[in-house]
C-alpha cells in the first residue's frame, strides 16, 4: 500500500499571493507541455498514425451540474472528476490526497450520494448533479456541519476536512449516524492523519442530535 500524502496544510486559500503561486505553476506546466509536443507530433506523423492519435486525444463534451450551476465542458476521457473540478472549474476545495481512493479527501456528492472523485472519470458524470464543499454553504451562512466542525475543532491541518464534511453530511442523510460506533464505521473512508477523529465524531453527533434537515 502506498503511503498517504502527508498533510501539507491548506494549499489554496483565496488570497492573492496564493493564487499567483497557482498561476505560476499552471504556466510553467503549460510551457513544459509545449516544449515536449513537437517531437511527439513529428514521430506520430512519420508513423502515419496522426489521425489515430487525433481521434484518441479528442476531447469529449461533458454536461453536468456543479453546485447548482450547469457546466458545459470539453474533457479528455481520462480526466477524473477530481481533476476537472480543481483544474477546469477551479473548485479547489475538493482535495487530492492519495488520488487512489484510499483517503477520502476527494469526497463529493453525485446525485446526492458520496463518492471518491479521484476514481470517478469525469466523462461518466454526464447529466449528473455534483455537490462539492463549495456548494454546502448558503451565501455567507455556513452549512450546519461546517459550523459544527469549527465548534468542535474537527480538524488540525484541514487537508482532509472538505472530504470529512461531505462524508459527514452523507453519513447523516443515509441514516448511519445513530451511535459513535456507527459514525466511526461509516466515516472510515475518510482518513485524518492529524487524528481529529473524536472531534469529528462529536461534530457529527451534534448535527445529528439537533435533527435539522441538512
Amino acid at each position, binding site marked *: *500500500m502506498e503511503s498517504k500524502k502527508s498533510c501539507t496544510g491548506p494549499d489554496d486559500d483565496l488570497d492573492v499571493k496564493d493564487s499567483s503561486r497557482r498561476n505560476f505553476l499552471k504556466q510553467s506546466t503549460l510551457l513544459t507541455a509545449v516544449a515536449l509536443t513537437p517531437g511527439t507530433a513529428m514521430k506520430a506523423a512519420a508513423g502515419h498514425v496522426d489521425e489515430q492519435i487525433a*481521434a*484518441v*486525444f479528442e476531447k*469529449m463534451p461533458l454536461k453536468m451540474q456543479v453546485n447548482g450551476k450547469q457546466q458545459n465542458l470539453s474533457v*479528455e*476521457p*481520462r480526466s*477524473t472528476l477530481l481533476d476537472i473540478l480543481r483544474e477546469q472549474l477551479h473548485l479547489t476545495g475538493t482535495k487530492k490526497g492519495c*488520488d*487512489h*481512493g484510499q483517503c*477520502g479527501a476527494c*469526497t463529493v456528492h453525485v446525485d446526492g*450520494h*458520496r*463518492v*471518491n472523485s479521484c*476514481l*470517478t*472519470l469525469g*466523462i*461518466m458524470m*454526464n447529466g449528473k448533479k455534483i455537490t462539492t464543499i463549495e456548494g454546502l454553504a448558503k451565501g455567507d451562512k455556513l452549512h450546519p456541519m461546517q459550523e459544527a466542525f469549527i465548534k468542535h475543532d474537527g480538524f488540525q491541518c484541514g487537508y482532509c476536512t472538505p472530504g470529512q464534511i461531505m*462524508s459527514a453530511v*452523507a*453519513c447523516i442523510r*443515509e441514516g*448511519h449516524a445513530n451511535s459513535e460506533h456507527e459514525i*466511526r*464505521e*461509516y466515516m*472510515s*473512508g*475518510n482518513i485524518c492523519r492529524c487524528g481529529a477523529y473524536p472531534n469529528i465524531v462529536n461534530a457529527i453527533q451534534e448535527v445529528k442530535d439537533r435533527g435539522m434537515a441538512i
Partner: protein
Amino acid sequence: MKQFQYVRPATQQAVLAAVGKPGSKIIAGGTNLVDLMKRGVTAPDKLVDINQLPLKNIGITKNGLHIGALALNSVVSENNLVTRNHPLLAMALKAGASPQLRNMATVGGNMMQRTRCGYFYDTTMPCNKRAPGTGCGAMEGINRMHAIFGASPQCIAVHPSDMCVALAALDATVVIAGKKGERRLPFTEFHRLPGDHPELDNRLAKDELIVGVEIPDNNFAKHSYYLKIRDRQSYAFALVSVAAALEIDNGLIKNARLAMGGVAHKPWRLFEAEKSLVGKPATEENFAHAAQLAMQGAIGHGGNSFKLKLAPATITEALKHAAGLV
C-alpha cells in the same frame, strides 16, 4: 494515465460488439479499474461504459433472488430482500471498502476486481499475473496478505472481495451474456485458481458480460455471519474472512455453508467442513473440528504462515456467531 477512447453503448448487443475487440475493457463503477489505469497496471485502448444498460434490478425470480450486475454494493447491502433473505450477503458487502466506494462499486465489478497483491500493483516488480513469465515477487517476498490454499508456483495472490465470499457460500449462480446468448455458471466456478495462467482471474470470456447473479432460496437467514479479520477495524482488506451459514433444527445442524476470503485466488468454499457439521449439535467442539478439516492442504509461505492458525480460529468464531453462541 494513458489516453483511451470512451464509448457509452445504449444496448447490450452494442456492448458485446464493443468488448470483443482487443484492447477494450468494460467500465462500470471504475473503483478498481481507474486505480489500475492510473498506476499503469493496465492500459486499455478503449473503455466501454456499460452504465446505460438496465442491469440494476434486484428482485425475486423463479431461480431465487436476482441481483443485476450494475446494482451498487451500497444499494444491495441495504435492500430489504437482501437483508431479510440473505443477511450474510449484506454483512459481507458492508465489511468491504468504504461507504464512498460502495456507492460506486457494482456487483459485476466487485466480481471482476483484481488482486491487491503489492507485486501486481508495482510495475517495476516481477508478477506473473500482470506480466506472464516475469516470475512471482511474492513467493519469496513480502507475502503477509497472500494465499495459503490453491496457490501455484506462479502465483500466490488472493482475490480481495468480501461480497464474493458470501455469494460462494450461498450457492449463487452467475448469469453471463455473450453473442450466442446467456449462460449460467455456479459462482464457485466463476473465479479460477492461478495454475499456469495466473493472468486469468476467472472464466468470463473477453466478449462476454456479467448481467447478474442469482441466489437460490435457503433457510440460513436466522443463522449466518460474516467475520472479517483485518489490520484495522474498518476499510481494510481481509487477512482472513469467513462466511458462515447454518440451518439449525432443534439444536442440530441440518445444513451448513462455509467459505473463506483472503486465503486463496478465489473465494474458498469449505465443502468438507460443511459436510462434517450436518446432523451434529451446534457446539464449539464441532465447529473447531470442522475448522481443522477445513485446513487440510493449507501451506504457509513465511509472511502469511500466521494464517494457518488465524484461519481455523476465524472459522470457529464465525460459526459461533452464526449459531448464536456468542
